[in-house]
Protein backbone atom coordinates (compact mmCIF):
# COMPACT_ATOMS: atom_id res chain seq x y z
CA UNK A 1 0.00 0.00 0.00
CA UNK A 2 2.67 2.34 1.10
CA UNK A 3 4.53 1.39 -2.03
CA UNK A 4 1.50 2.07 -4.19
CA UNK A 5 1.11 5.50 -2.70
CA UNK A 6 4.71 6.20 -3.43
CA UNK A 7 4.21 5.04 -7.01
CA UNK A 8 1.11 7.19 -7.46
CA UNK A 9 2.91 10.19 -6.04
CA UNK A 10 5.82 9.56 -8.35
CA UNK A 11 3.51 9.29 -11.34
CA UNK A 12 1.68 12.49 -10.30
CA UNK A 13 4.94 14.36 -9.91
CA UNK A 14 6.15 13.01 -13.19
CA UNK A 15 2.93 14.04 -14.95
CA UNK A 16 2.98 17.46 -13.37
CA UNK A 17 6.56 18.05 -14.19
CA UNK A 18 5.84 16.68 -17.66
CA UNK A 19 3.28 19.44 -18.11
CA UNK A 20 5.72 21.90 -16.68
CA UNK A 21 8.39 20.74 -19.09
CA UNK A 22 5.99 21.02 -22.04
CA UNK A 23 4.98 24.53 -21.01
CA UNK A 24 8.55 25.47 -20.34
CA UNK A 25 9.68 24.22 -23.67
CA UNK A 26 6.94 26.11 -25.50
CA UNK A 27 7.84 29.28 -23.63
CA UNK A 28 11.48 28.52 -24.08
CA UNK A 29 11.00 27.91 -27.74
CA UNK A 30 9.12 31.16 -28.11
CA UNK A 31 11.78 33.00 -26.18
CA UNK A 32 14.46 31.31 -28.22
CA UNK A 33 12.71 32.23 -31.44
CA UNK A 34 12.31 35.78 -30.20
CA UNK A 35 15.95 36.06 -29.23
CA UNK A 36 16.96 34.58 -32.57
CA UNK A 37 14.81 37.11 -34.36
CA UNK A 38 16.27 39.89 -32.27
CA UNK A 39 19.80 38.71 -32.93
CA UNK A 40 19.02 38.39 -36.63
CA UNK A 41 17.66 41.91 -36.65
CA UNK A 42 20.67 43.08 -34.73
CA UNK A 43 22.94 41.27 -37.16
CA UNK A 44 21.14 42.97 -40.00
CA UNK A 45 21.72 46.31 -38.36
CA UNK A 46 25.32 45.50 -37.53
CA UNK A 47 25.98 44.39 -41.04
CA UNK A 48 24.80 47.79 -42.10
CA UNK A 49 26.61 49.63 -39.35
CA UNK A 50 29.98 47.93 -39.05
CA UNK A 51 31.78 46.26 -41.91
CA UNK A 52 35.06 44.46 -41.55
CA UNK A 53 37.11 43.58 -44.60
CA UNK A 54 40.60 42.22 -44.81
CA UNK A 55 43.34 41.46 -47.29
CA UNK A 56 46.46 39.36 -47.22
CA UNK A 57 49.42 38.93 -49.51
CA UNK A 58 52.15 36.36 -49.26
CA UNK A 59 54.85 36.98 -51.85
CA UNK A 60 58.31 35.61 -52.50
CA UNK A 61 60.94 37.11 -54.78
CA UNK A 62 64.38 36.25 -56.03
CA UNK A 63 66.74 37.69 -58.61
CA UNK A 64 69.08 35.95 -60.98
CA UNK A 65 72.72 36.76 -60.34
CA UNK A 66 72.82 40.55 -60.52
CA UNK A 67 76.17 42.27 -60.01
CA UNK A 68 78.05 45.35 -61.06
CA UNK A 69 81.23 45.06 -63.15
CA UNK A 70 83.38 44.74 -59.99
CA UNK A 71 81.32 41.77 -58.77
CA UNK A 72 79.38 43.59 -56.02
CA UNK A 73 75.94 42.08 -55.54
CA UNK A 74 73.05 44.34 -56.50
CA UNK A 75 69.67 43.85 -54.88
CA UNK A 76 66.29 44.80 -56.30
CA UNK A 77 64.88 47.62 -54.14
CA UNK A 78 67.94 47.01 -51.94
CA UNK A 79 66.68 43.72 -50.48
CA UNK A 80 65.87 41.11 -53.15
CA UNK A 81 68.94 39.03 -53.99
CA UNK A 82 69.78 35.84 -55.82
CA UNK A 83 70.71 33.57 -52.93
CA UNK A 84 67.59 33.34 -50.82
CA UNK A 85 63.95 33.95 -51.54
CA UNK A 86 62.91 37.29 -50.10
CA UNK A 87 59.65 36.55 -48.30
CA UNK A 88 58.96 39.79 -46.52
CA UNK A 89 59.26 42.80 -48.86
CA UNK A 90 55.75 42.36 -50.26
CA UNK A 91 54.15 40.10 -47.65
CA UNK A 92 51.52 42.01 -45.72
CA UNK A 93 48.05 41.83 -44.22
CA UNK A 94 45.44 44.41 -43.43
CA UNK A 95 42.06 44.82 -41.84
CA UNK A 96 39.65 47.61 -42.57
CA UNK A 97 36.78 48.55 -40.32
CA UNK A 98 34.02 50.78 -41.64
CA UNK A 99 31.65 51.94 -38.98
CA UNK A 100 28.62 54.10 -39.56
CA UNK A 101 28.29 56.92 -37.07
CA UNK A 102 25.01 58.10 -38.53
CA UNK A 103 23.27 57.86 -41.88
CA UNK A 104 25.64 60.49 -43.26
CA UNK A 105 28.83 59.89 -41.33
CA UNK A 106 31.28 57.02 -41.23
CA UNK A 107 34.59 56.26 -39.56
CA UNK A 108 37.10 54.10 -41.43
CA UNK A 109 40.24 52.60 -39.95
CA UNK A 110 42.63 50.44 -41.90
CA UNK A 111 45.36 48.61 -40.04
CA UNK A 112 48.27 47.25 -42.01
CA UNK A 113 51.05 44.91 -40.95
CA UNK A 114 54.07 44.30 -43.16
CA UNK A 115 56.23 41.23 -42.81
CA UNK A 116 59.41 43.29 -43.12
CA UNK A 117 58.30 45.25 -40.05
CA UNK A 118 57.47 42.06 -38.10
CA UNK A 119 53.77 42.66 -38.75
CA UNK A 120 53.80 45.45 -36.20
CA UNK A 121 50.43 46.93 -36.97
CA UNK A 122 50.37 50.47 -38.21
CA UNK A 123 47.30 52.51 -38.92
CA UNK A 124 47.41 52.82 -42.68
CA UNK A 125 44.42 55.08 -42.76
CA UNK A 126 41.96 56.43 -40.28
CA UNK A 127 39.42 58.99 -41.27
CA UNK A 128 35.96 60.27 -40.70
CA UNK A 129 33.82 60.83 -43.74
CA UNK A 130 30.66 62.85 -43.98
CA UNK A 131 28.18 62.86 -46.85
CA UNK A 132 27.26 66.51 -47.31
CA UNK A 133 24.66 65.37 -49.81
CA UNK A 134 24.21 62.37 -52.08
CA UNK A 135 27.03 63.48 -54.38
CA UNK A 136 29.43 65.35 -52.07
CA UNK A 137 31.60 63.66 -49.43
CA UNK A 138 34.15 65.26 -47.09
CA UNK A 139 36.87 63.28 -45.27
CA UNK A 140 39.50 64.16 -42.69
CA UNK A 141 42.26 62.13 -41.07
CA UNK A 142 44.96 59.92 -42.54
CA UNK A 143 44.14 59.41 -46.22
CA UNK A 144 45.66 57.59 -49.18
CA UNK A 145 47.80 59.73 -51.46
CA UNK A 146 45.72 60.13 -54.61
CA UNK A 147 48.60 60.23 -57.09
CA UNK A 148 48.05 57.21 -59.32
CA UNK A 149 45.32 55.27 -61.10
CA UNK A 150 45.70 52.44 -58.56
CA UNK A 151 46.70 54.62 -55.58
CA UNK A 152 43.75 53.82 -53.38
CA UNK A 153 44.41 50.08 -53.09
CA UNK A 154 48.17 49.72 -53.55
CA UNK A 155 48.32 47.34 -50.56
CA UNK A 156 45.49 45.12 -51.81
CA UNK A 157 47.28 42.89 -54.31
CA UNK A 158 44.08 40.99 -55.07
CA UNK A 159 42.73 44.14 -56.73
CA UNK A 160 45.32 44.28 -59.53
CA UNK A 161 47.01 41.82 -61.89
CA UNK A 162 50.66 42.21 -60.81
CA UNK A 163 52.41 40.99 -57.68
CA UNK A 164 54.46 44.19 -57.55
CA UNK A 165 52.94 47.37 -58.97
CA UNK A 166 55.23 48.75 -61.70
CA UNK A 167 58.13 50.02 -59.56
CA UNK A 168 59.17 52.59 -62.14
CA UNK A 169 55.91 54.38 -61.40
CA UNK A 170 54.77 53.32 -57.95
CA UNK A 171 58.02 53.54 -56.01
CA UNK A 172 58.91 57.09 -57.06
CA UNK A 173 57.20 58.38 -53.92
CA UNK A 174 57.97 55.79 -51.24
CA UNK A 175 54.86 56.49 -49.22
CA UNK A 176 51.15 56.06 -49.78
CA UNK A 177 49.40 58.06 -47.09
CA UNK A 178 49.20 61.62 -45.84
CA UNK A 179 47.49 63.51 -43.07
CA UNK A 180 44.87 65.87 -44.35
CA UNK A 181 41.35 66.35 -45.62
CA UNK A 182 39.57 66.04 -48.91
CA UNK A 183 36.31 66.64 -50.70
CA UNK A 184 34.92 64.27 -53.33
CA UNK A 185 32.22 65.16 -55.78
CA UNK A 186 30.50 62.37 -57.73
CA UNK A 187 28.39 63.31 -60.69
CA UNK A 188 27.32 62.07 -64.10
CA UNK A 189 27.39 63.63 -67.52
CA UNK A 190 25.24 61.39 -69.69
CA UNK A 191 26.55 57.87 -69.23
CA UNK A 192 29.92 59.04 -67.94
CA UNK A 193 30.36 58.81 -64.17
CA UNK A 194 32.90 61.26 -62.74
CA UNK A 195 34.55 61.59 -59.39
CA UNK A 196 36.45 64.79 -58.68
CA UNK A 197 38.55 64.95 -55.55
CA UNK A 198 40.37 67.93 -54.05
CA UNK A 199 42.66 67.53 -51.06
CA UNK A 200 45.00 69.31 -48.69
CA UNK A 201 47.49 67.87 -46.26
CA UNK A 202 51.09 67.06 -45.45
CA UNK A 203 53.48 64.17 -44.90
CA UNK A 204 57.05 63.24 -43.99
CA UNK A 205 58.90 61.13 -46.57
CA UNK A 206 62.08 59.26 -45.73
CA UNK A 207 64.02 58.62 -48.93
CA UNK A 208 67.68 57.62 -49.36
CA UNK A 209 68.17 58.27 -45.64
CA UNK A 210 66.91 61.86 -45.80
CA UNK A 211 63.68 63.26 -44.43
CA UNK A 212 61.59 65.31 -46.85
CA UNK A 213 59.02 67.36 -44.97
CA UNK A 214 56.14 67.87 -47.36
CA UNK A 215 53.72 70.59 -46.29
CA UNK A 216 50.75 72.45 -47.71
CA UNK A 217 50.29 69.58 -50.13
CA UNK A 218 47.22 70.23 -52.20
CA UNK A 219 45.87 68.86 -55.39
CA UNK A 220 43.00 67.76 -57.49
CA UNK A 221 42.24 64.57 -59.34
CA UNK A 222 39.47 63.29 -61.54
CA UNK A 223 38.39 59.76 -62.34
CA UNK A 224 35.86 59.19 -65.11
CA UNK A 225 34.16 55.96 -66.07
CA UNK A 226 32.32 55.25 -69.30
CA UNK A 227 31.39 51.60 -69.66
CA UNK A 228 34.67 49.75 -70.05
CA UNK A 229 36.81 52.91 -70.03
CA UNK A 230 38.36 54.64 -67.05
CA UNK A 231 40.34 57.87 -67.25
CA UNK A 232 42.46 59.36 -64.48
CA UNK A 233 44.26 62.66 -64.04
CA UNK A 234 45.96 64.02 -60.94
CA UNK A 235 47.91 67.13 -60.12
CA UNK A 236 49.46 67.86 -56.75
CA UNK A 237 51.77 70.57 -55.55
CA UNK A 238 53.43 71.09 -52.25
CA UNK A 239 56.17 72.82 -50.30
CA UNK A 240 59.14 70.65 -49.42
CA UNK A 241 61.79 71.21 -46.76
CA UNK A 242 64.88 69.10 -46.15
CA UNK A 243 68.00 69.51 -44.08
CA UNK A 244 70.93 67.75 -45.74
CA UNK A 245 73.63 69.38 -43.64
CA UNK A 246 74.17 66.26 -41.49
CA UNK A 247 74.35 63.93 -44.48
CA UNK A 248 76.67 66.34 -46.30
CA UNK A 249 79.03 67.02 -43.39
CA UNK A 250 77.80 70.51 -42.62
CA UNK A 251 77.06 71.61 -46.17
CA UNK A 252 73.88 73.67 -46.20
CA UNK A 253 73.88 74.80 -49.84
CA UNK A 254 71.40 72.09 -50.86
CA UNK A 255 68.87 72.42 -48.05
CA UNK A 256 65.32 73.10 -49.05
CA UNK A 257 63.01 75.44 -47.19
CA UNK A 258 59.43 75.26 -48.44
CA UNK A 259 60.58 74.71 -51.99
CA UNK A 260 57.93 74.11 -54.61
CA UNK A 261 57.30 70.56 -55.82
CA UNK A 262 54.71 68.92 -58.00
CA UNK A 263 53.52 65.53 -59.14
CA UNK A 264 51.20 64.94 -62.06
CA UNK A 265 49.78 61.68 -63.30
CA UNK A 266 47.66 60.59 -66.22
CA UNK A 267 46.09 57.17 -66.65
CA UNK A 268 43.79 55.34 -69.01
CA UNK A 269 42.26 51.91 -68.65
CA UNK A 270 40.10 49.73 -70.88
CA UNK A 271 38.58 46.54 -69.53
CA UNK A 272 35.81 44.67 -71.32
CA UNK A 273 35.85 41.76 -68.91
CA UNK A 274 38.23 39.68 -71.02
CA UNK A 275 40.76 42.06 -72.52
CA UNK A 276 42.28 44.83 -70.45
CA UNK A 277 44.80 47.48 -71.38
CA UNK A 278 46.02 50.20 -69.06
CA UNK A 279 48.74 52.77 -68.99
CA UNK A 280 49.95 55.63 -66.84
CA UNK A 281 52.40 58.48 -67.06
CA UNK A 282 53.72 60.50 -64.18
CA UNK A 283 56.20 63.27 -63.45
CA UNK A 284 57.75 64.30 -60.16
CA UNK A 285 59.65 67.55 -59.98
CA UNK A 286 61.14 69.44 -57.04
CA UNK A 287 62.67 72.86 -57.38
CA UNK A 288 65.98 72.49 -55.53
CA UNK A 289 69.10 74.59 -55.04
CA UNK A 290 71.46 74.00 -57.99
CA UNK A 291 68.77 71.62 -59.37
CA UNK A 292 70.15 68.68 -57.41
CA UNK A 293 66.88 66.75 -57.42
CA UNK A 294 66.18 65.15 -60.79
CA UNK A 295 62.90 65.49 -62.68
CA UNK A 296 61.58 61.92 -62.79
CA UNK A 297 59.39 60.74 -65.65
CA UNK A 298 57.62 57.40 -65.24
CA UNK A 299 55.34 55.41 -67.48
CA UNK A 300 54.04 51.92 -68.01
CA UNK A 301 51.63 50.09 -70.25
CA UNK A 302 49.98 46.75 -69.46
CA UNK A 303 47.84 44.41 -71.50
CA UNK A 304 46.21 41.23 -70.32
CA UNK A 305 43.55 38.75 -71.34
CA UNK A 306 41.37 36.64 -69.08
CA UNK A 307 40.89 33.07 -70.22
CA UNK A 308 38.60 31.48 -67.68
CA UNK A 309 40.46 31.54 -64.38
CA UNK A 310 43.79 32.45 -65.97
CA UNK A 311 44.93 36.00 -66.68
CA UNK A 312 48.22 36.30 -68.53
CA UNK A 313 49.52 39.87 -68.74
CA UNK A 314 52.50 41.79 -70.04
CA UNK A 315 53.86 45.15 -68.87
CA UNK A 316 56.47 47.53 -70.17
CA UNK A 317 57.64 50.22 -67.77
CA UNK A 318 60.18 53.01 -67.74
CA UNK A 319 61.64 55.62 -65.45
CA UNK A 320 63.94 58.37 -66.61
CA UNK A 321 65.45 61.49 -65.17
CA UNK A 322 66.36 64.77 -66.80
CA UNK A 323 69.99 65.28 -67.88
CA UNK A 324 72.60 65.69 -65.17
CA UNK A 325 73.87 68.65 -67.17
CA UNK A 326 70.93 70.59 -65.71
CA UNK A 327 72.64 70.45 -62.30
CA UNK A 328 74.69 73.52 -61.42
CA UNK A 329 78.02 71.85 -60.63
CA UNK A 330 79.66 75.15 -59.68
CA UNK A 331 77.90 75.03 -56.29
CA UNK A 332 79.84 73.39 -53.44
CA UNK A 333 82.29 71.52 -55.61
CA UNK A 334 79.65 69.78 -57.71
CA UNK A 335 78.08 67.93 -54.76
CA UNK A 336 74.72 68.53 -56.46
CA UNK A 337 75.77 65.99 -59.09
CA UNK A 338 76.32 63.37 -56.39
CA UNK A 339 72.87 64.03 -54.90
CA UNK A 340 71.29 63.93 -58.31
CA UNK A 341 72.73 60.47 -58.91
CA UNK A 342 71.36 59.20 -55.58
CA UNK A 343 67.83 60.12 -56.59
CA UNK A 344 68.07 59.81 -60.37
CA UNK A 345 66.69 56.44 -61.40
CA UNK A 346 66.96 55.23 -64.94
CA UNK A 347 65.64 51.88 -66.11
CA UNK A 348 63.18 50.05 -68.27
CA UNK A 349 61.56 46.69 -67.72
CA UNK A 350 59.39 43.97 -69.17
CA UNK A 351 57.18 42.02 -66.80
CA UNK A 352 55.29 38.90 -67.84
CA UNK A 353 52.81 37.57 -65.33
CA UNK A 354 50.06 35.05 -64.82
CA UNK A 355 47.20 35.29 -62.37
CA UNK A 356 45.09 32.28 -61.48
CA UNK A 357 41.81 32.86 -59.65
CA UNK A 358 41.50 29.87 -57.37
CA UNK A 359 38.13 30.96 -55.99
CA UNK A 360 36.51 34.38 -55.53
CA UNK A 361 38.71 35.92 -52.84
CA UNK A 362 41.93 34.01 -53.50
CA UNK A 363 44.30 34.29 -56.42
CA UNK A 364 47.71 32.84 -57.17
CA UNK A 365 50.20 34.85 -59.16
CA UNK A 366 53.55 34.38 -60.81
CA UNK A 367 55.65 36.93 -62.65
CA UNK A 368 59.05 37.43 -64.21
CA UNK A 369 60.45 40.92 -64.63
CA UNK A 370 63.58 41.72 -66.56
CA UNK A 371 65.29 45.09 -66.31
CA UNK A 372 67.47 46.96 -68.79
CA UNK A 373 68.71 50.35 -69.98
CA UNK A 374 70.33 51.60 -66.76
CA UNK A 375 72.79 53.70 -68.72
CA UNK A 376 72.71 57.30 -69.54
CA UNK A 377 75.23 58.97 -71.80
CA UNK A 378 76.48 60.92 -68.78
CA UNK A 379 76.63 58.31 -66.06
CA UNK A 380 75.53 54.87 -64.97
CA UNK A 381 72.59 54.23 -62.68
CA UNK A 382 71.42 51.21 -60.72
CA UNK A 383 67.82 51.80 -61.59
CA UNK A 384 65.77 50.26 -58.80
CA UNK A 385 68.61 47.93 -57.83
CA UNK A 386 71.10 48.94 -55.18
CA UNK A 387 74.20 47.75 -53.42
CA UNK A 388 73.25 47.35 -49.75
CA UNK A 389 76.92 47.14 -48.71
CA UNK A 390 77.86 50.42 -50.35
CA UNK A 391 74.66 52.37 -51.09
CA UNK A 392 76.64 55.05 -52.88
CA UNK A 393 77.93 52.51 -55.39
CA UNK A 394 76.24 53.49 -58.65
CA UNK A 395 78.28 51.37 -61.06
CA UNK A 396 75.13 49.83 -62.56
CA UNK A 397 74.25 46.18 -63.17
CA UNK A 398 76.71 44.39 -65.38
CA UNK A 399 74.60 41.23 -65.62
CA UNK A 400 73.18 40.44 -69.06
CA UNK A 401 69.52 40.52 -68.01
CA UNK A 402 68.85 41.41 -64.38
CA UNK A 403 65.70 39.44 -63.67
CA UNK A 404 63.34 39.15 -60.71
CA UNK A 405 61.05 36.14 -60.21
CA UNK A 406 57.99 36.48 -58.01
CA UNK A 407 55.25 34.19 -56.70
CA UNK A 408 52.32 35.24 -54.57
CA UNK A 409 49.08 34.24 -52.93
CA UNK A 410 46.61 37.10 -52.64
CA UNK A 411 43.41 37.13 -50.70
CA UNK A 412 40.57 39.42 -49.68
CA UNK A 413 38.10 38.45 -47.02
Amino acid sequence: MYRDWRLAAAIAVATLSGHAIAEDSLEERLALAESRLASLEKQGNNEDRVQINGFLTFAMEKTNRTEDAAGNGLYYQGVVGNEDWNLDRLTRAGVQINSKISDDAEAVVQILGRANEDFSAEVQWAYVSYDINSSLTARAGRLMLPFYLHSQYTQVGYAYPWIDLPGEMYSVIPLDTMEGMDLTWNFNTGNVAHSINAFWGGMDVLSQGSLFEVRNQHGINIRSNLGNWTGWYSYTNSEVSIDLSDALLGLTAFNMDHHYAYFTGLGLQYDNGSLFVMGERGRLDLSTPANWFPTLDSAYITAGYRIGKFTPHLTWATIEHNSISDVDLSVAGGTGGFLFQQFGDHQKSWTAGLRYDLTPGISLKAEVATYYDFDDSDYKSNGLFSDPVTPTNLAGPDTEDPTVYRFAVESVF
Partner: protein
Amino acid sequence: MIKRILITVLLSLPLFATAQTATAEELAVIVSKNSPVTSLTDAEIQQLFSGQSRSVGGNSLQPLDLPGGDAQRNAFYQQLLGRSPDQMRSHWARLIFTGKARPPREVNSPREMKTMIESSESFIGYIPAADVSDKVKVLKLFN
Protein backbone atom coordinates in the same frame (compact mmCIF):
# COMPACT_ATOMS: atom_id res chain seq x y z
CA MET B 1 46.44 31.94 -91.82
CA ILE B 2 47.13 32.84 -88.19
CA LYS B 3 45.01 35.91 -88.64
CA ARG B 4 42.18 33.75 -89.93
CA ILE B 5 42.38 31.40 -86.96
CA LEU B 6 42.43 34.37 -84.62
CA ILE B 7 39.38 35.88 -86.26
CA THR B 8 37.55 32.56 -86.09
CA VAL B 9 38.42 32.22 -82.41
CA LEU B 10 37.37 35.79 -81.70
CA LEU B 11 34.11 35.40 -83.56
CA SER B 12 33.28 32.17 -81.78
CA LEU B 13 33.91 33.62 -78.30
CA PRO B 14 30.48 35.28 -78.03
CA LEU B 15 28.94 31.95 -79.09
CA PHE B 16 30.40 30.30 -76.01
CA ALA B 17 29.15 33.15 -73.90
CA THR B 18 25.58 32.89 -75.16
CA ALA B 19 25.63 29.10 -75.03
CA GLN B 20 26.54 29.36 -71.34
CA THR B 21 23.84 31.82 -70.40
CA ALA B 22 21.01 30.41 -72.50
CA THR B 23 20.63 27.65 -69.93
CA ALA B 24 20.23 30.16 -67.07
CA GLU B 25 16.79 31.29 -65.96
CA GLU B 26 15.42 34.58 -67.20
CA LEU B 27 16.06 37.27 -64.58
CA ALA B 28 14.00 40.37 -63.92
CA VAL B 29 15.41 43.56 -62.40
CA ILE B 30 12.70 44.81 -60.05
CA VAL B 31 11.70 47.63 -57.72
CA SER B 32 8.62 48.04 -55.54
CA LYS B 33 5.35 48.76 -57.33
CA ASN B 34 5.20 52.02 -55.32
CA SER B 35 8.66 53.17 -56.34
CA PRO B 36 8.76 56.53 -58.13
CA VAL B 37 11.29 54.98 -60.52
CA THR B 38 9.53 53.86 -63.67
CA SER B 39 12.43 53.04 -65.98
CA LEU B 40 16.19 52.71 -65.87
CA THR B 41 18.73 52.64 -68.68
CA ASP B 42 21.21 49.77 -68.83
CA ALA B 43 23.94 52.23 -67.83
CA GLU B 44 21.96 53.30 -64.73
CA ILE B 45 21.44 49.68 -63.66
CA GLN B 46 25.16 49.00 -64.22
CA GLN B 47 26.15 52.05 -62.14
CA LEU B 48 23.82 51.07 -59.27
CA PHE B 49 25.09 47.49 -59.09
CA SER B 50 28.76 48.39 -59.52
CA GLY B 51 28.82 51.02 -56.78
CA GLN B 52 29.19 54.04 -59.05
CA SER B 53 25.91 55.62 -58.02
CA ARG B 54 23.49 55.38 -55.15
CA SER B 55 20.50 57.14 -56.64
CA VAL B 56 18.67 57.73 -59.89
CA GLY B 57 16.96 61.04 -60.63
CA GLY B 58 17.07 62.03 -56.96
CA ASN B 59 15.56 58.69 -55.81
CA SER B 60 17.90 56.75 -53.60
CA LEU B 61 18.08 53.08 -54.62
CA GLN B 62 19.90 50.43 -52.63
CA PRO B 63 20.86 47.32 -54.59
CA LEU B 64 20.38 43.87 -53.09
CA ASP B 65 22.42 40.78 -53.91
CA LEU B 66 21.80 37.06 -53.70
CA PRO B 67 24.36 35.16 -51.60
CA GLY B 68 27.90 34.78 -52.94
CA GLY B 69 28.28 31.74 -55.19
CA ASP B 70 24.59 31.78 -56.16
CA ALA B 71 24.20 30.77 -59.83
CA GLN B 72 21.57 33.44 -60.51
CA ARG B 73 23.76 36.11 -58.99
CA ASN B 74 26.70 34.99 -61.15
CA ALA B 75 24.49 34.95 -64.26
CA PHE B 76 23.16 38.43 -63.42
CA TYR B 77 26.62 40.03 -63.26
CA GLN B 78 27.82 38.14 -66.30
CA GLN B 79 24.91 39.61 -68.26
CA LEU B 80 24.86 43.08 -66.72
CA LEU B 81 28.58 43.81 -66.64
CA GLY B 82 30.24 40.89 -68.44
CA ARG B 83 32.16 40.09 -65.24
CA SER B 84 32.84 36.74 -63.59
CA PRO B 85 32.50 36.23 -59.80
CA ASP B 86 36.31 36.54 -59.50
CA GLN B 87 36.28 39.83 -61.37
CA MET B 88 33.38 41.19 -59.31
CA ARG B 89 35.35 40.29 -56.18
CA SER B 90 38.34 42.28 -57.50
CA HIS B 91 36.04 45.13 -58.46
CA TRP B 92 34.60 45.34 -54.96
CA ALA B 93 38.03 44.96 -53.37
CA ARG B 94 39.05 48.11 -55.26
CA LEU B 95 36.02 50.05 -54.02
CA ILE B 96 35.88 48.71 -50.45
CA PHE B 97 39.52 49.43 -49.72
CA THR B 98 39.15 52.83 -51.30
CA GLY B 99 36.34 53.56 -48.88
CA LYS B 100 34.34 54.59 -51.92
CA ALA B 101 31.42 52.21 -51.88
CA ARG B 102 30.08 49.11 -50.22
CA PRO B 103 28.93 46.04 -52.09
CA PRO B 104 25.16 45.49 -52.28
CA ARG B 105 23.52 44.15 -49.15
CA GLU B 106 23.25 40.35 -49.35
CA VAL B 107 19.96 38.56 -48.74
CA ASN B 108 19.58 34.85 -48.10
CA SER B 109 17.29 33.85 -50.94
CA PRO B 110 15.37 35.14 -53.97
CA ARG B 111 12.26 34.91 -51.77
CA GLU B 112 13.79 37.29 -49.20
CA MET B 113 14.88 39.64 -51.97
CA LYS B 114 11.36 39.70 -53.34
CA THR B 115 9.80 40.28 -49.91
CA MET B 116 12.16 43.13 -49.13
CA ILE B 117 11.54 44.84 -52.45
CA GLU B 118 7.77 44.37 -52.15
CA SER B 119 7.84 46.05 -48.75
CA SER B 120 10.20 48.97 -49.44
CA GLU B 121 10.68 51.50 -52.21
CA SER B 122 14.37 51.93 -51.44
CA PHE B 123 15.56 48.57 -52.81
CA ILE B 124 16.38 47.29 -56.26
CA GLY B 125 17.14 43.65 -57.00
CA TYR B 126 16.81 40.76 -59.39
CA ILE B 127 14.65 37.62 -59.20
CA PRO B 128 13.67 34.88 -61.64
CA ALA B 129 11.17 36.38 -64.08
CA ALA B 130 8.73 33.56 -63.26
CA ASP B 131 8.50 34.78 -59.64
CA VAL B 132 7.46 38.36 -60.47
CA SER B 133 4.35 39.40 -58.50
CA ASP B 134 1.97 42.32 -58.94
CA LYS B 135 3.67 44.08 -55.99
CA VAL B 136 6.82 44.79 -58.01
CA LYS B 137 7.76 46.60 -61.19
CA VAL B 138 10.00 44.98 -63.78
CA LEU B 139 12.58 47.44 -65.14
CA LYS B 140 14.64 45.07 -67.24
CA LEU B 141 14.64 41.44 -68.32
CA PHE B 142 17.79 39.40 -68.82
CA ASN B 143 17.59 36.06 -70.54
